[in-house]
């Protein structure tokens, strides 16, 4: 113990040093993205590279707007992510309620089945799903992303666990005696109780769908239907790359998420850990 105390100051400063270095490493790409997004390409291509923001912010972003439908892609991403999030919250909480509080034949087996589906890599059914979407006439249609996205085994699992522990059976019994149907119990008792779980699952689902790349790339082929992730990638297509323009698009597509994160960072971090750890 004594030696520990004596060693502590040096060890402590080393730990601080390590944390500062890692934090700078974490933050630097954001800063650098901003530097690039505000400098003309001529400055970017010089050695040593520029390290301070320039004055080309508007010009670079204008080039982005000329190259890809930036706002349309952001809107598509927003539509897809929010529709799926709301849909998943409703469907998963309903199913979670059923699995947690309603008795029906085969309940355990059906639940285990849902857990089992979480083990399947999404690429396994990629090609046939693409042809199903083609058959439905949903190519380059946001429904191609939204409808399969509503299927969320993890969400059902998470909601079941939450409802099982957060809602006492006695309240449900009392509501039944008052003549509440199961749907009214869900709507008037379960939903108000599980709002924190909605926040958690909502953040997890929204983030996952917002960042999704492979599936939207496959089915949203028409440029006007691109999500922001697919649109950003097409910035890289030019033979001669304008890094100022490319990082301007990337930067402004990232800013909204950073702002939301900084506003709700406690809830955000808690959601991610809860979702992972439970």
């Amino acid at each position: 113990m004594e030696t520990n105390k004596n060693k502590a100051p040096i060890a402590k400063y080393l730990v601080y040093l390590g944390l500062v270095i890692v934090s700078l490493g974490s933050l630097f790409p954001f800063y650098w993205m901003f530097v690039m997004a505000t400098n003309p390409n001529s400055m970017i291509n010089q050695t040593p590279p520029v390290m301070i923001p320039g004055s080309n912010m508007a010009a670079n972003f204008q080039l982005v707007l000329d190259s890809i439908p930036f706002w349309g892609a952001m809107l598509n991403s927003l539509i897809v992510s929010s529709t799926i999030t709301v849909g998943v919250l409703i469907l998963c909480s309903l199913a979670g309620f059923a699995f947690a509080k309603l008795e029906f034949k085969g309940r355990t087996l059906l639940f285990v089945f849902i857990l089992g589906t979480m083990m399947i890599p999404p690429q396994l059914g990629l090609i046939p799903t693409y042809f199903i979407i083609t058959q439905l006439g949903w190519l380059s249609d946001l429904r191609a992303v939204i409808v399969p996205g509503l299927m969320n085994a993890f969400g059902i699992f998470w909601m079941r666990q939450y409802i099982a522990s957060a809602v006492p059976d006695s309240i449900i019994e009392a509501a039944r005696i008052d003549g509440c149907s199961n749907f009214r119990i869900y709507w008037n008792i379960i939903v108000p109780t599980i709002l924190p779980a909605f926040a958690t699952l909502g953040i997890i689902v929204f983030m996952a769908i917002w960042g999704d790349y492979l599936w939207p790339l496959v089915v949203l082929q028409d440029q006007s239907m691109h999500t922001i992730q697919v649109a950003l990638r097409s910035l890289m297509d030019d033979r001669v790359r304008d890094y100022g323009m490319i990082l301007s698009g990337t930067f402004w597509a990232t800013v909204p998420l950073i702002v939301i994160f900084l506003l709700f960072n406690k809830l955000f971090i808690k959601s991610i850990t809860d979702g992972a750890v439970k």
Partner: protein
Amino acid sequence: MAGLQRDTDKSDDNNTMSGSNKEPQKPKKRTFSQKQRNMASGYMFISPFYLLFAVFGIFPILYSFYLAFFRWDGLGDMEYVGFNNFNIIFNDPLFWKSLYNTIIIGLMGTAPQLIVALLLAFALNSVLIKYKSVFRLAIFLPYVTSIVAVAIVFSVIFSNQESGLVNALLGMFGVEPITWTRAEWGTKVAISTMIFWRWVGYNTIIYLAGMQSIPNDLYEASKIDGASLRQQIWHITIPMLKPFIIFTVFTSTIGALQIFAEPHIFQGRAGRPEGMSIVLYLYRDAFGSNFFGTASATAIVLFFIIIIFSSLNLYFANRIGRSKKVGVK
């Protein structure tokens, strides 16, 4: 009798309240017990998942297994070819290269990352350290950026030009500029860096949550018994963190095996052998060349690879855990 009468009355009431739930059964004019009603709503509430899974889950999966035995370009007739598709991919050096790349990049991107995350979590969990929330925020921020954004930013950081950031840095030490997108190890370093940067904070936060869930009594009791800090770490923290470590290793492994966006963006749409991953190989085969049969065969091979790696993970996780426990008791 009276009691029974009252009971059915009540269910009658309920029935009208939940009328929308019971519509299909209305022709029969009898009332339903609570048990039956729970069953009906139970099945109804869970049915959307199973309907969606039937169309977008189980059917495509079974069809992938079917398609793997056919030659098909997506338009013309399908031709049964037996195991030929598997023969084709197993004889394709690029397939083995993609498997090798995926494993190497996965190891380079995740193994150091998990170790650093564990160290960071220790630091952020220490009572001696101040400004924890600031550090935590900074370290976690990369997770908020999408994988595509990360891949683009690092593609520019690792650009082939002399003026590229990493090349310029290396240049200060007299190192010749590296063509990152075409160099065997350059590509792997760049892609692993992307993975490291985006996920290290995420895993740190999970380890931190794990450490905070360990009851303080354990540490205090061990202190009384004269345990050193190192002993505390090896005999309390690590064993108690085991489920969290298993979780992160598990998810990192599965995530690493499915790498796609990073090489697809870093090396351009067509892809190149240095960064080719299994999923990129599959994607290119299917949507670049219209070889849907061989691509389905690749999907099935990937599925089994994931199963094998997951089982290996579980096996080792259990073994490590057991030897630790023996050490404690």
